[in-house]
């Protein structure tokens, strides 16, 4: 795009006035002064815009940082065309990334074949960030004409946080047909004592209660809690209502992602199958699985899926549709850990509906309420009531203050849990 700047508007008039006065008053000196003005006026009538022939490349170091890590960005501009006296460059820093040091802008003069560089650092944040086109503007020596262009220089900054670690996460009594570490409500092979029953032909000799045999002569078989693996789907509340801000100003989705990653890490380490899903206008689904490759996939999903982006959704949310979709994907024998701030009653309804259809639910709720003002105290109480409503239905609730470690909140909640 070429445009005239019209900054020299009036210079011709000034020059002509001076020349005219010089002629009228018969003072050649003034005339000479007018000629200075005329010279500038001639300078300003240049209308040819400079041609832009630039090679622009960008380097990111590192291109796969961890959250909070500084990333140094270097934009190189090589002038492959004629001399540019006035070149302005502004790099397209991705929205959501803050410039820590340096400046993504530059104004310079560049001869043919010469290279200029813009260097600055940004702080990495979770997610995938693409750079916007580079803004370039060149002016002629009089700065009366400008040529402006947007150059696409594709760069992507991918920040996939590691899964935070936690010792374990207590699950509800629902399992799949696989040996694991969940002490189930059925007796069989295992480690934890469950009951004693009458001996049946075929029972393993190692499970015979020899103490009783010695005392009473009866043959009895010890039953242990059958240890089976669990299948768990972590469902993150992705509705607009869930995008409230925490005290640090970050959307609560960041806390949910962090908590989901922590729980997933603990469960996978214990041999359970873990999947993730979103409940909201933006859909995300990763079916329960295990193994190293599944763990890596899950980690990337949490970091990069659009449903878990830091920006709230634009799309409309259709609760019935979303719930049906989730229901269709949820395996019947999977437990659900539902992560939601419980800022509205719909969260309670979803948990209850999932529980009613056969998936045991544990709600993990980051607490964003305070008791600073009367209005805020009301919200705090409303949330407490919602948690009570869930507990009354047998749904476990972990009330987590994001200022403290998740493990402590889990442990405190688990004290009150029965099987």
């Amino acid at each position, binding site marked *: 795009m070429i445009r005239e700047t019209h900054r020299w508007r*009036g210079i011709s008039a000034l020059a002509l006035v001076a*020349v005219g006065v010089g002629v009228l008053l018969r003072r050649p*000196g003034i005339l000479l002064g007018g*000629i200075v003005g005329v010279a500038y006026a001639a300078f300003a009538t240049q209308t040819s815009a400079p041609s832009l022939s630039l090679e622009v490349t960008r380097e990111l170091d590192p291109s796969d940082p961890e959250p909070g890590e500084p990333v140094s960005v270097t934009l190189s501009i090589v002038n492959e065309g004629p001399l540019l006296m006035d070149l*302005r460059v502004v790099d397209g820093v991705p929205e959501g990334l803050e410039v820590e040091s340096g400046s993504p802008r530059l104004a310079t003069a560049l001869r043919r074949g010469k290279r200029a560089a813009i260097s600055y650092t940004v702080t990495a944040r979770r997610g995938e960030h693409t750079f916007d086109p580079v803004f370039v503007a060149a002016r002629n020596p009089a700065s009366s004409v400008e040529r402006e262009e947007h150059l696409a220089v594709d760069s992507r900054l991918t920040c996939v946080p590691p899964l935070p670690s936690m010792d374990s996460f207590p699950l509800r009594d629902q399992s799949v047909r696989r040996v694991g570490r969940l002490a189930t409500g059925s007796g069989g092979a295992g480690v934890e004592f469950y009951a004693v029953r009458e001996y049946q032909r075929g029972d393993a000799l190692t499970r015979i209660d020899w103490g009783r045999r010695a005392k009473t002569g009866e043959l009895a078989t010890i039953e242990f809690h059958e240890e089976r693996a669990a299948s768990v789907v972590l469902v993150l509340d992705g509705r607009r209502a869930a995008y409230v801000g925490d005290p640090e100003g970050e959307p609560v989705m960041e806390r949910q992602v962090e908590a989901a990653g922590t729980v997933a890490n603990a469960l996978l380490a214990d041999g359970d199958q873990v999947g993730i899903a979103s409940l909201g206008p933006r859909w995300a689904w990763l079916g329960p699985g295990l193994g190293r490759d599944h763990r890596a996939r899950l980690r990337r999903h949490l970091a990069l899926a659009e449903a878990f982006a830091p920006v709230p959704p634009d799309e409309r949310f259709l609760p019935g549709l979303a719930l049906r979709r989730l229901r269709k994907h949820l395996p019947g024998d999977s437990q659900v850990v539902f992560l939601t701030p419980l800022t509205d009653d719909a969260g309670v309804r979803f948990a209850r509906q999932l529980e009613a259809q056969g998936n045991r639910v544990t709600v993990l709720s980051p607490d964003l309420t305070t008791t600073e003002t009367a209005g805020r105290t009301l919200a705090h109480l409303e949330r407490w009531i919602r948690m009570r409503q869930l507990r009354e239905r047998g749904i476990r609730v972990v009330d987590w203050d994001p200022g403290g470690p998740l493990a402590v909140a889990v442990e405190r909640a688990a004290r009150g849990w029965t099987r």
Partner: protein
Amino acid sequence: MTTFDDRPVRLGMALSLGLGLTAALFAGSGTSGGVGVALLGGALLLGGLGLARRSLLTAGGVLLFMAHLFRIWLGGGLTLSLVGATFAVAAWDVGEHAIDLGEYVGRSARSRHAVLAHAAASLAVGLVPVGLGYGVYLLAPGGRPVSALVLLLLAAVLVTLGLRR
């Protein structure tokens, strides 16, 4: 994107002020007639730069230029006034460029090369004709054929104008 400090770039401001102050000083030397106008021009230039207001800057440049024409009229030395007039226009040019660069790239960006290249071009445009004129004046035979010389210069500039278009 993040916001940035979009005030006029420092080097450009300093150069513009330097040129403007010199022009004001020249205007006051020899005769005292144009001093008031020159000082007002200088003040407006300063205000225009500090507040990033182009209107003030232009008014300041024009006044400084006029002050020199006035000085010539009062009989002040030609050379100093022609240089002063050039400095007045160059002060405006460099100053406006500094305001513009501030809006495009801001103070924290590197802009030294662009400012210096522009200032050099701006000064050359004014000083070259003045130098040429002075050269012709020195080389001209006899007394002070200023009128003829002036007309010659005018013709040269107008021809250049015609060529550009």
